[in-house]
């Protein structure tokens, strides 16, 4: 995982830019995209419920499937059941995919990322190792980028309001 903030900032930027291009995408869709971008890191539930304890009950167990494309799309679809919006699934799902895209670039000791496509394939693609999840610069870069997007968005909103008057 890159830190969650980087994922969420980039999802914010992506969603906002998409909302400029497509009228159907509104502010709350940007939020749904941001939610989607957090989903693969639900594996962090392991900090609260340690998989080791569940294994101690005699059941093989791992949260890793949450951090695969299929697993995060399943979670996205579950969440979609509680959102009254026809675009909910494609948007939350896209957020999750953006997370995988970023995480596949993470530095890893073995040089290979993680089995993104499991259970369809166990293949872990080689990773270019651009950054660590504990590095601070990805969030700074993403933050600066999001700030620019936010400012452009404010400007657009203002000019639209003026036009509307």
């Amino acid at each position: 995982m890159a830190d969650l903030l980087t994922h969420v900032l980039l999802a914010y930027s992506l969603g906002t830019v998409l909302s400029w291009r497509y009228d159907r995408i509104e502010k709350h869709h940007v939020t749904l995209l941001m939610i989607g971008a957090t989903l693969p890191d639900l594996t962090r539930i392991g900090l609260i419920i340690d998989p080791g304890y569940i294994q101690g009950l005699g059941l093989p167990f791992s949260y890793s499937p949450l951090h695969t494309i299929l697993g995060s799309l399943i979670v996205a679809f579950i969440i979609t059941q509680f959102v009254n919006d026809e675009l909910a699934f494609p948007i939350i799902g896209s957020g999750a995919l953006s997370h995988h895209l970023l995480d596949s670039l993470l530095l890893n000791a073995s040089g290979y990322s993680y089995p993104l496509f499991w259970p369809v394939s166990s293949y872990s693609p080689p990773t270019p190792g651009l950054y660590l999840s504990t590095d601070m610069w990805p969030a700074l870069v993403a933050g600066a980028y999001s700030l620019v997007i936010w400012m452009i968005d404010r400007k657009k909103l203002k000019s639209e309001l003026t036009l509307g008057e």
Partner: protein
Amino acid sequence: MLATFKHRLAVVIILTAILISLFVWYGSLEPDPDVHRYPRAEDLIKDEEKYVGQEVEVGGRVVSTTPLTIEIEHGGDTRELYITGADEEPNKNDRVTVFGTLEDENTIAASEIISRPYINYLYMYAVSVAAALWILFRISRQFRWDMERSLFIKREDQDG
């Protein structure tokens, strides 16, 4: 797309069951170096001898720097491992991920080691919590929860 509450509930239950099955399935997988699924901390803790001579990838906390020793942890059990051949010099309490060959039960000959200061870990968790709060704030401004239909509905008065 959204059907009756019963229909939606059925979808949620079925998908949750599939997810839990995936958790169990993945947990039952043995390490497989051919697909770069190397033995990890939990494998080494479960069976220390089985992986001697194999490549392993483990994460842990530095408990001593001379010799470099890390503590790995799983399900409340811990073990200490010596790391040889490291080209980095982590400090005590740093978190490291080591890729290398398990030479004997207690020693990894590292071919790659990534260390991160503990403070960076705190940073990562702090900004991640900030990100979660940002999202919660946006949800509360842009959506409302409809009790009767058990649905989040867009607020019409939202202003971003």
